[in-house]
Each structure stands twice: as C-alpha cells, then as structure tokens.
C-alpha cells in the first residue's frame, strides 16, 4: 500500500468498524422462491380474505361507531351501563343481531389482520405456526363464547 492510498482513507473512521470481539451483524440470505411458476387457481383464499377486510371494515365503521355512541355518549353516557341496561337491549332481536354481527366481523377482521402481520413478520416457519395456532385458538374461543352468551342470555339470572 502506498502512502497516498492510505492517506485517502479517513483517519479515525478508516478500516473496519468491527473486529473479533465486536462482530458486524450478519446479512442473512433470504429464502429463495421456487423455480417454477405457481399453479393457477380460480377461487383464492387470499383474494377472499382481502375482499373481506375491505367489506367488513366498511360495515364495522357503522357498527362500532353506533355501538360507541349508544354505550358512551347518548343518554347519560357510561354511567347508565349496568346489567339492566344490557338486559334491556338484548331483549330486542335487533340489538342481538347488531352485537352478534359486530362480534363476528370484528373478531374475524382482527384475526385476519394479525394473520397477515404474522405472515409478514414471523421469519421462522415454526414461530409462524405457533403464533397462528395461538391466534386461531383465541379467535375461535372468543367468537364461540360471545355467540353463546348472546343466544343464551337470561335476564333473570341470579
């Protein structure tokens, strides 16, 4: 190395910033896509999921804003909420359907959103599997429990 060569390199910052004790972060190789063109499919879960997110989102805006208004703003706000209030509302099939729809759409919408987050961020297939397993279990449990409560609700419970 000639003198002028090394002088062109900055004094403090020259050379490697890392050494044996302070290794540089490794750039990991990405997984490679397969060499062949994927088989064409007509009906497609990903497309259905994508569409569902858009449509359920629109419906949820109405349902959730209405829900929040009734529960928190109109007619006395939060203070009026109690067992009697809920029992009174669920006496009408309209509110039963409203809450049922909201439960299902919100849970599926949220679950699908988390599914895509897991797909995008979990790097190891095993992590992915476990996270999704947990997610699906929680979703199914909440949906079933909620549905059960709405349908079997008994206002005279002691």
């Amino acid at each position: 190395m000639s003198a002028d060569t090394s002088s062109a390199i900055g004094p403090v910052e020259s050379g490697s910033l890392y050494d044996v004790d302070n290794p540089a972060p490794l750039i990991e190789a990405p997984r490679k896509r397969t060499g062949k063109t994927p088989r064409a499919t007509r009906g497609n879960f990903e497309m259905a999921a994508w569409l569902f997110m858009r449509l359920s989102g629109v419906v949820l805006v109405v349902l959730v804003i209405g829900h929040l208004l009734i529960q928190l703003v109109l007619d006395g706000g939060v203070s009026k909420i109690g067992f009697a209030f809920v029992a009174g509302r669920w006496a009408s099939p309209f509110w039963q359907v409203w809450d049922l729809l909201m439960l299902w759409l919100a849970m599926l919408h949220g679950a699908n959103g988390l599914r895509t987050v897991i797909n995008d961020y979990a790097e190891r297939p095993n992590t992915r599997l476990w996270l999704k397993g947990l997610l699906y279990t929680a979703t199914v449990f909440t949906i079933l429990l909620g549905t059960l409560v709405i349908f079997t609700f008994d206002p005279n419970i002691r």
Partner: protein
Amino acid sequence: MATPVLDKAEAESSASPYITVTFRIRRFNPEVSEDAVWEDFAIEIDPKERVLDGLHKIKWDVDGTLTFRRSCAHGICGSDAMRINGKNRLACKTLIKDLNPEKPITVEPIKGLTVLKDLIVDMEPFFQAYRDVMPFLVTKGNEPTRERLQSAEDRERFDDTTKCILCAACTSSCPVFWNDGQYFGPAAIVNAHRFIFDSRDEAGEQRLEILNDKDGVWRCRTTFNCTDACPRGIEVTKAIQEVKRALITRRF
C-alpha cells in the same frame, strides 16, 4: 486569469469545487470474512458529481477490491440500484450535493437479496419472479404481415409501466419481500401490468391467474415504498392496485 487582483483570495477559495466526502460502504467478502462490515473512505470530490463517480474514484484510486455493478452510468440499464443513505436509488442518478455531503454517505447493497460481494446481490430470485409473469407478448392466430397497430389511448393505458428498467429498487424496498422473498414483488407485477393492459396481448387472463397466487398481488400492503424507490418515477403501487381491481372486477 481575468480575475481582478482584489478578488483573488476569494476566487481561489471558491475555485476548487472539491470537497471531502466520506463514503461509508457496507463491505462483504465471503473469502475473507463471514461478516459484513462498514468501511469509511474519505475522498475529494465535486459535490455536483454522482455517487457512482465517488464509487469509481474509490475503486480506481483507493481500493480496487470494491465491487459493484454498473453499466450505462446514465440511468438506463438498471444495474446499480443500491441503498444510499437508507433509501434505494440508482448510484448513477444520485448527486452527492443532494445527499448532505457533510455527513458520511452510507452505501449498502439492496435488501432482501443474498449479498454475493460488497454491493453485488444475487438477482436470480428477482428475475425468477419477473420470468414467472411471462413478460412477453402472447397472441393467437396468424402473424400479421405488418406491425400490430394500437390506438394512442390504448397505448396510454400502460404507458407508465413500460418505463421499468428492472433495477430491483422497488422489490428490494418492499417489507413483504424482505420477509421470505416469496412475494412476487412490485417489479414483477409492474411488468405483468405492462402486458395485462396491452390491448394487443391475449394472455392477460393467464397473467392475472399467476398474480392471484397466495404470494401474488394480495400480499401487497400498500406500503408505497416501491413508488418512493422507483428511479423512473413509475407509480408502482397504483399499478399493483390496478391489477387487484382487474382481478376482482373480472369475476364479480
């Protein structure tokens, strides 16, 4: 020269356009070390020059082992996309003065593709996705004896996506592609769009089917990184959404 004597001192200080710029380059050489390291090079350069000129200076005058791709040096061939100051750009279209030369300019290989050496990545997965969408004209029937005519409006429909130079700046800026590299990536979809919306082409359906795959357009989260990264100013995200719309409207 003709400069008045009084202004001489001032003229001299402004005569040299050269300033010292530090290039902080991500070096990787698998024959030397498993690890990629940052290395700084301070060079004298005119800020009106481009990052590519800086890299040339380093390679030719300082360290001949610095490795990067470039061919045309004028934004046409698409071989020198790299991550400059954290953004994907073409080194040959990025002026040093636009980058705040007081601070070190970081230069890294594009993300999401295997680094082979220094700034060179393995482009094979990228081109595999490109080939997968059949980027060529497909027609049925007899060859016409003259060119296939098309109205100006029909040509306009896909004009934006004809500009792609396959630099991979968009695909390697996409967080979905970074995850597992299975997503087709914006560039492949842009090049499918170029034929799907071409009135002369007859394999649009087939290409839509390919992009309807689970790693196709539906993995797009409209992050808009691709549109920001494209050195040709292609509205990449819009093209992807147009493909999505075509997929849905063709069915319902």
